[in-house]
């Protein structure tokens, strides 16, 4: 079975053509509250194993859960941002299954009365079309611990447990089966990550597991309304893997259906290293969760006034911010989209843009130097030692011609290291510029004589070549000259040369 999929994996389009792809996502979002959902333990990521636990999250005999009401605000913010209806009363339910990293033997989740239902998000579909994806529900639950088998320090037949993650608050968001391609699914996840970051409710980091997704996927004849037999894909822990795993499974199902075979309903585990999805052992998936209302917790009652209060406090969301950047700063849609992709980048840009005139220059620098620097350092742009206020000083000098691009880049790089205001460095670079007109004129003449063809064309009327010469000259001077002074000298030289020729 896997062989079929693996062969056609590289060309999913071939077999999916007669079929329509139907994908629904179940997304888990780890909330960034300070403490766990049902006890006071810290939720900090990366702490020593089993150091952030107490009788409640360990499920010790006699311990009882108490809801951390902070998670309700996080859930409500996501519900409001996705247009979901917040249910006035929702119920916790026990989801029963045995697993060593599930200390109570059940997960406290929500079942037939979830926190919120019936909203939607937009994804970019084929040909840049914006498509609405319905959200079925958003509910609250507690996370399980981690079973550790595959580390070097674990003996072959042993499993170690780290229960720090037990009780970390999760939101589960379930979409309707409205997604039609792996690209749409990946776009949905990216937009959701952007949204949870804007709302400040989750780090949205897929690699750390704070954003996780399972996908239900089936194929049906194009144009049909029915649903085919679905499979469930698990363990896709990056946007790229979401796309690859779904493409793999589409190919597998497509090949099977094209050959007249039948899809078996099952759960598949994506193996990112080998690039294949394989069925879980049936024992691991044969769960009857036996949901029933959680008797240790009272129903969650949400008042309309509280929701309205939260609605008033909602931050500006990505779409609105992008539109405002185009309108207010006159930025192209591409720039506005990229700058507002991450709320930290958008905040950085906005602080910068309010300090300088040339918004496009600000945008170019943030999209270029600033993002490169944060990527290289693996930190957020707001953590860089070059705050927007410093960059504003630098870009101001650049746009007024006190320093050249190359000098600005040098100062930027220095600032990233020392965190100092660039004022002094600007003085230094500006001072290092060749002020002596005669000296500069020598360099200009040299540039002209060493590029005779271009000089002829320039004198013949190709005015744009002035920029070329300015570049050549600045290059040879390593940026230590005012481009406007060079321009002026070039014009003088041109005039002189033309006069000489009569």
């Amino acid at each position: 079975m896997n062989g079929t999929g693996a062969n056609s994996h590289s060309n999913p389009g071939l077999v999916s053509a007669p079929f329509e792809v139907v994908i629904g996502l179940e997304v888990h979002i780890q909330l960034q509250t300070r403490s766990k959902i049902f006890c006071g333990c810290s939720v900090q990521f990366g702490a020593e194993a089993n150091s952030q636990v107490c009788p409640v999250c360990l499920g010790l005999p006699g311990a009882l859960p108490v809801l951390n009401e902070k998670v309700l605000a996080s859930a409500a913010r996501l519900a409001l941002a996705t247009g979901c209806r917040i249910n006035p009363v929702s119920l916790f339910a026990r989801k029963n299954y045995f697993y060593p990293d599930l200390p109570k033997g059940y997960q406290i989740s929500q079942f037939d009365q979830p926190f919120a239902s019936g909203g939607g998000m937009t994804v970019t579909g084929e040909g840049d079309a914006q498509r609405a994806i319905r959200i079925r529900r958003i509910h609250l639950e507690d996370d399980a611990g981690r079973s550790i088998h595959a580390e070097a320090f674990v003996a072959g037949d042993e499993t170690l447990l780290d229960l720090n993650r037990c009780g970390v608050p999760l939101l589960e968001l379930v979409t309707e089966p409205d997604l039609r391609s792996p690209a749409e699914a990946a776009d949905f996840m990216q937009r959701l990550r952007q949204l949870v970051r804007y709302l400040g409710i989750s780090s949205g980091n897929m690699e750390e597991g704070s954003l996780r997704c399972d996908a239900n996927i089936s194929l049906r004849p194009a144009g049909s309304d029915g649903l085919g037999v679905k499979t469930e894909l698990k363990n896709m822990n990056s946007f790229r893997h979401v796309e690859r795993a779904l493409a793999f499974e589409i190919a597998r199902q497509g090949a099977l259906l094209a050959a007249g075979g039948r899809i078996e309903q099952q759960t598949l585990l994506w193996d990112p290293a080998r690039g294949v999805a394989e069925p879980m052992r049936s024992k691991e998936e044969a769960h009857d969760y036996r949901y029933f209302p959680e008797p240790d917790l009272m129903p969650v009652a949400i008042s309309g006034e509280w929701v309205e209060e939260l609605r008033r406090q909602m931050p500006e969301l990505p779409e609105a911010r992008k539109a405002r950047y185009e309108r207010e700063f006159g930025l192209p849609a591409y720039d506005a989209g990229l700058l507002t992709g991450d709320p930290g980048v958008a905040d950085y840009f906005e602080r910068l843009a309010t300090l300088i005139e040339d918004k496009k220059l600000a945008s170019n620098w943030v999209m270029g130097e600033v993002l490169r620097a944060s990527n290289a350092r693996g930190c957020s742009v707001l953590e860089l030692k070059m705050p927007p206020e410093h960059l504003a000083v630098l870009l101001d000098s650049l746009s007024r011609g006190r320093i050249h691009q190359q000098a600005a880049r040098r100062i930027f790089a220095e600032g990233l290291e020392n965190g100092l205001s660039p004022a002094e460095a600007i003085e230094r670079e500006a001072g290092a510029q060749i002020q002596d007109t005669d000296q500069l004129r020598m360099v200009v003449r040299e540039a002209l004589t060493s590029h005779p063809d271009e000089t002829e064309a320039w004198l013949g009327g190709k005015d744009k070549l002035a920029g070329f010469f300015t570049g050549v000259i600045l290059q040879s001077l390593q940026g230590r000259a005012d481009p406007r002074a060079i321009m002026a000298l070039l014009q003088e030289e041109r005039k002189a040369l033309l006069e000489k020729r009569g």
Partner: protein
Amino acid sequence: MLLHTGSVDFQSIKPLLAAGSITCTSLAETYLQHIDKGAHLNAFISVFAEKALEQAAAVDRKRTRGTAGRLAGLFLGVKDNIVWSSGPTTCASRMLAGYHSPFSATVLKRLAEEDAIFLGKTNMDEFAMGSSTENSAYGAVRLPADPGRVPGGSSGGSAAAVAAGLCTAALGSDTGGSIRQPASFCGVVGLKPTWGRVSRYGLVAFASSLDQIGPMGRSVADCAELLQVMAGYDPADATSSMAPVPDYAASLTRDLKGLRIGLPREFFPQAGMESAVRAAVEECAAFLRREGAELVPVSLPHSGYAIAAYYVIADAEASANLARFDGARYGRRSPAAAALGEMYTLSRSEGFGVEVKRRIMLGTFVLSSGYYEAYYGKAQKVRTLLQRDFAEAFRTCDLLLTPVCPTTAFRIGEKAGDPLAMYLSDIFTVSVNMAGLPALALPCGRDSAGLPIGAQLIGPAFSEPLLLAAGHHLEKGHAPARAFAEAS
């Protein structure tokens, strides 16, 4: 001399302590001697003799300084499903042999703050599942009045210990009658508070929506005083009530004139109830009428479905509550287990007793896909109907008076092989848990064999002051009930 029997209630101990005729230390010694003499009853799983003596000395020092709490001189037996960090907690199960909780139940903290001293952990039906205290990994408990008989259950160790004077009072837990039925069999007072009145934090859960910790003692006043300390909101229990805690002692003597006592006809059936039980409870009713109460015939028409619905809901919750005992982190792990699946099946097969396994299987079944609506869903509907029955009855009366159990204590082994017959022992008590109501069981006579008979008073939610007042009047004025009070 009262002290020689050790069987006195806390209200009569207090003046003796104040007069200096006894000390906490001498009381501790007496109780420990009684525990030794009563060893054949098998009422305790663990006894904290040294610690109790140390604490008694400490409380005596506090008394001389005038800083002792209101429960100084009260020696408690604690049902072994309530966790205490200073001793083992077994739930009378092999599963938890050697388990030591790192934290203490909220009720124990509150009682300790008032200087109650914990003498030991009392025997019980395993995980509180049973009505005879025969389902214990530590052996059956015997009825003090007749050691060939059961003390009732599941809080049989607590009831027997109180009845035999092995402690001043005790804590039990009541999921379907587990405080009231053993109190009735042993001839002591037991209170099942309103669900949410007493924190469940630290009670090893059997059926969370039904469980409630309550006091068991030799007088209504003792139960009132214990409840005073135990009751109240606990931030660690999301289902504990924020309703203010009234002064229970002050309400004990309130006048009963005009009180309307309902007699639900379903609780006085023609068949299946011993005539001595019926006669004793009817005499209680007659006494209360003489005291100025009005007797009102009422009906709880859905009572007949209570036992079936109760066992569906209780076992469903139990199947989840007991899932944590899987051998992975604490409790028994089968040494024979070689793989994960085996760790679960062997550890649980070896760790749990027959009745616990039966209930886990029943509970798992009624929640399973395809059966949920027919069993759990239906049982929840019955539960709603039972709640409505009570609400309807309390429109015409203030309290209900019923027997606790259709029979007096039965012989050890008599019902052990017949779970259904055993379950019927709870027929008059389970509805109260299904509706979350408070109920008081108190002795009201003896049958021809001299075995105690218990009466049950049931009230609306949070009506403990009224229940305790009615119970107190019966205990003080009604001759058969007074006989118990005086025997202590």
